[in-house]
């Protein structure tokens, strides 16, 4: 009653401002309460009818009569159109999944208790044959090649998309062991290169002893430094394998954000790969420097390292205290680190 009175009062107030539309306002005043009352009456009637039907069924049961289910036209339509169509559609979707994902999974689908478990599934033995050619470098993940090439020029920039670039030092960390040289020393480096090549590990030892922040603008990468960016779609196999035989000497964890890394995001978020949470592994292989950066995304919760199971990523407090300086760890014994063979599992992207 109070609601109706308030509505009437407000309507009268509006009518006083526009005397020309007085009749319309009077009509709207009773439209809303009228509809509410009608709805309440209809719900009441339906409830009363249900109570009456239930009472009748109960009385029939007391007399020993079992009421049979009599499907009406509506039920028949629902059964034949929606149920059958939906089940057929489900079958096709599951068939697609079966072909692309379930066939390769190490365990049958019912063995996975959650989507999270399935997300980080292992594969059947032999599903991913490793190219054992000693003069080849293999893909560490299942994915799509976004960018690749040789790092050249000041800052050693990787192009995210046209117009957006980020430096390798920003991605791997300022204290990275990247074989960089000062821009002015490029020509001198040519003469001294034989010495550098003969003592491949010397730059590593120097870097390890006194990590310094390199000026990304005035330094250039040494010749023969390459990169490759691989994108993993949701649903892909999300474990990372070793691309070559190498020694992992250190790990760096950047607690960043978890922006999506799809095509649209790469075009709109500048420095996307540098902003996101990531784990960087650095070390040496037969040809020199090697680094793998595992970059998280919205659908990825945490990054798990098999060579360091105690590492925890995607921690809320860490994300709140997002800072430039990463958390670092040098693997012991110093200078040797953790030895990995080509194809060995290194890490996994977890859901949650």
């Amino acid at each position: 009653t109070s609601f109706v009175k308030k509505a009437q009062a407000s309507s009268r107030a509006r009518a006083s401002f526009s005397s020309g539309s007085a009749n319309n306002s009077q009509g709207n005043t009773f439209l809303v309460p009228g509809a509410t009352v009608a709805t309440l009456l209809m719900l009441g009637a339906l409830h009363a009818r249900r109570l009456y039907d239930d009472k009748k069924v109960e009385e029939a049961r007391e007399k020993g009569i079992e009421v049979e289910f009599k499907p009406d036209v509506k039920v028949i339509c629902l059964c034949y159109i929606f149920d059958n169509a939906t089940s057929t559609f489900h079958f096709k979707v599951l068939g697609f999944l079966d072909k692309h994902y379930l066939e390769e999974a190490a365990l049958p689908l019912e063995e996975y208790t959650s989507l999270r478990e399935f997300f980080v599934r292992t594969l059947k033995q032999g599903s991913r044959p490793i190219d054992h050619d000693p003069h080849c470098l293999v893909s560490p993940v299942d994915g799509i090649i976004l960018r690749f090439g040789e790092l050249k020029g000041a800052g050693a920039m990787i192009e995210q998309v046209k117009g957006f670039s980020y430096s390798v030092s920003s991605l791997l960390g300022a204290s990275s062991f990247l074989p960089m040289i000062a821009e002015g020393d490029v020509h001198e480096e040519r003469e001294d290169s034989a010495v550098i090549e003969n003592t491949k590990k010397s730059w590593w030892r120097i870097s390890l002893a006194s990590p310094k922040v390199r000026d990304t603008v005035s330094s250039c990468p040494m010749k023969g430094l390459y990169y490759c960016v691989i994108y993993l779609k949701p649903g892909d196999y999300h474990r990372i394998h070793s691309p070559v035989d190498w020694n992992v000497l250190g790990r760096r964890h950047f607690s960043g954000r978890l922006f999506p890394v799809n095509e649209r995001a790469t075009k709109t978020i500048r420095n996307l790969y540098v902003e996101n949470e990531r784990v960087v592994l650095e070390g040496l292989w037969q040809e020199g420097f090697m680094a793998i950066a595992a970059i998280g995304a919205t659908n990825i919760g945490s990054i798990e390292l098999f060579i360091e199971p105690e590492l925890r990523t995607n921690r809320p407090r860490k994300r709140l205290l997002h800072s430039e300086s990463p958390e670092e760890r040098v693997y012991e014994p110093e200078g040797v680190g953790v030895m990995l063979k080509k194809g060995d599992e290194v890490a996994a992207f977890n859901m949650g």
Partner: protein
Amino acid sequence: STVVLVFQAPSLKSLEREDTTSEFRFSIGRGDKIRVGEALGKWQN
């Protein structure tokens, strides 16, 4: 999620200097689908 690999490999410069007879070449293209264990690039010895 994304994985970025950064690595040193035999280059033309090492050709001039050592007995290396080949430089590293990627065997992939932009947009290619790749699986674990498939070659990203090769070099000859």
